[in-house]
């Protein structure tokens, strides 16, 4: 099997859907849209099977020489190794489930075919990103993902607000992309290649640990990852990206776009090991983001925005793990997060459709009886997100990160405290949302129940949100390290400084306790409503905070003041600038010439012939003059 088939099939189906949608019916669109991802997932399974069978020798395919200039060659080379294999499997499998769900969710949309074309393009671009063997091709996929997010966030383009959200996502991530492009230029200048294995092997010889150049490059790469993965300070686009259809949100949050940053950092981990400062910055960004986004999620009123901030927060955990050198823990959390976040988004979508596109949490309530099936899958997803101990996948992956934030070589007690605070917040905001939706008095009439196409993917994801955790168990609970072992050829094992079973038990105990008490707090807050707590929460001092959290700590306003307003002002001042006048002058000159030439077009044939004759005479005279000179 060729690795190239994995991205090629979604691309091909996207082309078919874009070009032939008028000629093929809705059923055919469904078959092409979902079938291509299923096919791609099958090929991926076969290739990963090969990879496992041949002792993790990477499966590489050289498709084409893309660029060749001087000593520089960039090929379209696809490579499946332990790391990309995990991403490819998650992208295709979760992507397939999202596609199946979307056939139900988007069933009545007039732009059904355009939707699937963009979704397949999205999956294809993400697959190119993770399978690329050189950074240029990775960048191609990286930008492809950005384009598709733009197309899909603004999918319902008739509402200007959606277009604003799409543009914001595009422009804000572009800031990070610029940093990443500069990192690529620097890498090429210093190592002479853009092939990932080549860079990683020559980086260790080129730079000593902590040298300024490698730190700069790592920081620039981090900037790219921060933009794509919506981390501080470029996180503002993700909550607004909720403007797109819910399956799009599920795809962006679970399987594709926002995890690209995690993948990039894991892929270039050698550079980060050479730059401890950049690595520490990664950990700090992750820790700060996960706490700030947790607070924001706590006070949102829109169900999808709660989930959006929760994604920012969970990706913060992944960055924290990457920054501590716990590479495989980050990838493990990515996998479990993909399952439960896709589950949560799609069950939220089911609720939204059932309530006739109502997204306000405070207008829901009492849905437990009316949406029984959704209630259970949402509960499983929420439990996994909140990391209920022992029974959920989220517990095993998040707990590992919390413990390593303390004990790993790059860890620090402060990071550990931030991670624990995040665990408390996660429990609180997740179950606040859960209780608000399903308990209390019913406020909205259920419009219609989700169909089979929407429910079956939810059941599968619910099972995965539980069992996916059992592949990697902590040392204190059975010590199973399948994920770390699988990733060992690509990602080095984490160096644990403080290895102590007692401390690990303590850390796990505290994090489990915090998660549960977060749930308890949410329960008292939303359902039992004791006077003390509501008095405390409605204090005027907290009101101020709540407003800021609800607006995402007012980063938007900050950027408006710092960047948008000055830019608009400058452009207004500079509206009639000199350079523009030069070009306007050229345009005027051309207009005058045009008028003159238009005069010569008289419609009288003999004048034209005369023109031809004069021209011929002139050319012949010049020729003869030059011959006889």
């Amino acid at each position, binding site marked *: 099997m060729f690795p190239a088939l994995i991205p090629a099939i979604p691309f091909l189906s996207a082309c078919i859907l874009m070009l032939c949608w008028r000629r093929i019916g809705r059923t055919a669109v469904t078959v092409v849209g979902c079938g291509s991802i299923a096919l791609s997932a099958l090929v991926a399974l076969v290739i990963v099977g090969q990879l496992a069978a041949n002792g993790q020798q990477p499966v590489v395919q050289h498709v084409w020489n893309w660029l060749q200039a001087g000593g520089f060659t960039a090929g379209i080379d696809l490579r499946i190794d332990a790391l990309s294999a995990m991403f490819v499997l998650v992208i295709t499998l979760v992507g397939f489930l999202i596609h199946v769900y979307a056939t139900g969710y988007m069933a009545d949309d007039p732009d059904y075919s355009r939707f699937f074309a963009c979704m397949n393009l999205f999956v294809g671009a993400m697959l190119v990103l993770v399978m690329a063997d050189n950074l240029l091709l990775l960048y191609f996929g990286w930008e492809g993902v950005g384009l598709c997010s733009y197309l899909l966030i603004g999918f319902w383009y008739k509402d200007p607000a959606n277009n604003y959200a799409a543009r914001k996502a595009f422009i804000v991530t572009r800031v990070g992309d610029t940093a990443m492009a500069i990192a690529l230029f620097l890498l090429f200048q210093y190592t002479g290649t853009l092939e990932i294995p080549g860079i990683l092997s020559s980086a260790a010889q080129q730079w000593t640990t902590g040298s300024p150049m490698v730190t700069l490059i790592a920081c620039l790469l981090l900037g790219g990852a921060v933009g794509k993965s919506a981390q501080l300070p470029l996180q503002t686009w993700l909550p607004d990206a909720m403007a797109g259809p819910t399956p799009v949100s599920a795809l962006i949050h679970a399987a594709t776009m926002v995890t690209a940053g995690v993948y990039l950092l894991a892929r270039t981990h050698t550079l980060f090991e050479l730059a401890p400062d950049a690595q520490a910055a990664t950990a700090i960004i992750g820790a700060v983001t996960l706490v700030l986004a947790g607070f924001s999620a706590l006070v949102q009123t829109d169900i999808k925005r709660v989930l959006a901030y929760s994604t920012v927060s969970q990706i913060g955990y992944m960055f924290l793990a990457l920054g501590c050198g716990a590479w495989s823990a980050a990838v493990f959390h990515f996998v479990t997060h993909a399952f439960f976040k896709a589950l949560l988004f799609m069950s939220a979508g089911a609720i939204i459709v059932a309530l006739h596109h109502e997204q306000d949490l405070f207008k829901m309530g009492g849905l437990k009886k009316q949406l029984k099936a959704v209630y259970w899958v949402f509960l499983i997803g929420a439990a996994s997100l909140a990391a209920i101990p022992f029974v959920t996948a989220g517990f095993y992956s998040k707990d590992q990160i919390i413990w390593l934030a303390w004990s790993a070589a790059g860890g620090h007690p402060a990071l550990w405290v931030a991670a624990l605070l995040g665990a408390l917040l996660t429990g609180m905001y997740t179950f606040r949302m859960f209780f608000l939706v399903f308990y209390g008095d019913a406020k909205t009439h259920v419009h219609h129940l989700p169909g089979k196409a929407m429910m079956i993917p939810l059941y599968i994801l619910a099972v995965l949100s539980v069992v996916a955790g059992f592949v990697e168990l902590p040392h204190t609970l059975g010590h199973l390290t399948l994920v770390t072992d699988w990733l060992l050829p690509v990602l080095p094992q984490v160096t644990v400084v403080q290895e102590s079973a007692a401390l690990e038990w303590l850390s796990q105990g505290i994090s489990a306790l915090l998660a549960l008490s977060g749930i308890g707090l949410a329960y008292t807050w939303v359902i039992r409503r004791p006077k003390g707590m509501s008095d405390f929460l409605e204090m005027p001092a907290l009101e101020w905070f709540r407003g800021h959290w609800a607006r995402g700590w007012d980063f938007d306003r900050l950027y408006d003041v710092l960047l948008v307003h000055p830019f608009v002002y400058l452009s207004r001042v500079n509206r009639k600038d000199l350079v523009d006048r030069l070009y306007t002058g050229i345009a005027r000159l051309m207009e005058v010439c045009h008028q003159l030439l238009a005069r*010569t077009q008289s419609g009288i044939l003999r004048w034209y012939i005369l023109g031809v004759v004069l021209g011929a005479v002139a050319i012949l005279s010049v020729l003869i003059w030059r011959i006889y000179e």
Partner: protein
Amino acid sequence: MNLHPTTAGLLLSGVLFVLGLISILVRRNIIFMLLSVEIMLNAAGLAFVVASAHWGTADGQVMFMFILAMAAAEVSVGLALILQLYHQLKTLDSDEANKMNG
């Protein structure tokens, strides 16, 4: 006057060409303009034949065959156009057909 045959032939073709050119510029009747074009084509053909005789190759004569075929095609198209022109404007004056000006 004792001219080399090649020079004489080329002179003849040149004179013919210029005559055709002048008549196409001064005539307004479109049929005469078509005739003048034929004269110019024949002048060019004559130049080809003279040149092929000069170098002793058949290339120029083959080229003249092409010119003849092209002239035949051109005349048929041209006459059809003239018929249409007459049908539309009831005149053969080419200056009357000046509707397509800028």
